[in-house]
């Protein structure tokens, strides 16, 4: 295991972004860093700036007004980057999927690595989801993403953006 990969798995830095959620998932996400759940014991740290983050935790359905901002934040994150969709809304659009100002789940705009269903998912579930992501990384998924995935990802991203505009 390379030093970079080891560091990536041992200490992922998270950024949280609400794309139109109802606050339920966000508060559960914050609850995960408080004493009962304490994700910091896994080396997970909540980060303020997208430029320092490895993992983007998205809560809420993607509203039309937030789409551009989400893409901007996603682009600002350094490679390799991973996206966790937290909650039913982020996974599929949830109860808001037919609303006129909602695109749907996060995967309608950016590629997602881990989905955490639940309305809202319990802090345990969020921790479990992130642990799954770390497992995925230790199996070597992050490496490919840097080498080949980048180009594909970018073009895919552009395609999705075009789609989002047409929506």
């Amino acid at each position, binding site marked *: 295991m390379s030093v970079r990969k080891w560091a990536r798995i041992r200490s992922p830095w998270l950024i949280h972004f609400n*794309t139109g959620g109802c606050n339920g998932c966000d508060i559960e996400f914050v609850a995960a860093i408080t004493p009962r759940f304490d994700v910091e014991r896994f080396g997970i740290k909540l980060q303020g700036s997208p430029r320092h983050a490895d993992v983007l935790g998205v809560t*809420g359905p993607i509203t039309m007004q*937030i789409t551009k901002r989400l893409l901007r934040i996603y682009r600002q994150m350094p490679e390799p980057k991973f996206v966790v969709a937290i909650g039913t809304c982020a996974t599929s659009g949830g109860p808001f999927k037919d609303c006129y100002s909602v695109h749907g789940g996060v995967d309608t705009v950016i590629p997602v690595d881990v989905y955490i269903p639940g309305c809202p998912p319990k802090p345990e579930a969020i921790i479990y989801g992130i642990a799954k992501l770390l497992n995925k990384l230790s199996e070597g998924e992050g490496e490919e993403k840097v080498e080949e995935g980048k180009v594909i990802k970018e073009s895919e991203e552009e395609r999705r953006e075009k789609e989002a505009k047409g929506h």
Partner: protein
Amino acid sequence: MSYGTTIKVPFGPQHPALKEPEYFLFEVDGDIVVKVTPRIGYVHRGVEKAFEQETYLHNLYLAERICGICSHAHSTCYTQTIEGLIPLEIPPRAVYIRLIMAELERLHSHSLWVGIAAHEAGFDTLFMYLWRDREMIMDLMEEISGNRVTHAINTIGGVRRDITSEQATKIKKFLEKFESNVKEYTKVLESEQTFIKRTKDVGVLKPRDAIVLCAVGPTLRASGIKSDVRADDPYLAYGEIPFNVITHDGCDVYARTIVRCEEMIESANIIRYALDHLPEGKIKVPPPRTIAPNESVGRVEAPRGELIHYARSNGTNKPERYKVRAPTLGNLASVCQTLIGAHVADIPLILAGIDPCFSCMDRVIITKKSV
């Protein structure tokens, strides 16, 4: 000291101080804010339209998902409005169970907020303590309703789950511990010099301004104005339960913190009284599927302030029009006013001071007519 020129400082929509995406453009002269332009709407999901497309029973679950922190307040307001449309009287036991849940939710929301305020003021220890205690409330609510956040305990015509006597004992036991903890934290907040220096005379909202700018809830009460829907227009069983409306004359962020701390104690007393006087009987009456043309308004004191729902029925099983007016919309104008003249470093604290919940509030704004 004035520099003569102003600099524009953008704040949000992604900002570590706010959990929700909201954008404010601050014009600052040196370190002093001179102009605030909010830009709302990032969380606009079209909930009001969605209400019109689903049946009354489906909408119950949508109403809870307007806001994830005061979900019970929204569902209480929704059921109240719909029961006003029918009209339908709900059993007294259901009324008390709704009230107990509402007060438990106020405890959780206020402890969450006081924690956030302490965090914004740089007092992280208290943040962690309060959120640790909040987990006890979440456990209780999970035991009563089956879910931590979206309780789904309300239904049109009553409640879906009963509170057993074991649960009542558990709640009382919890209240004892929680109350003594909150008293301790209040004492800490009142004597901790760093917190006082950080919050006193910060974000001052004069009583007159508070009324003119339509502030609601703890923000209004912290400006010394006695206004609380629970006392002014009693809904549920608030008319039968003795309680005080907490006010504070400080008008600043410190006053808002103390008001919320004291409200927690008051809520604990309300729950205790309600548990002691819990009536026996049914918890639910069956509602009709379709509702004849009618109009109704529901008012509820959510943890953040006055919450208003409006519904109009047209004889089918779906509402014709539904409208939600969330407390944050009332408080937004006042917070923009209080931010003027504040230091840049105090912006997160003042913004957090109204306990903003933008997901309840966000709506579409059309700024260019020609497009």
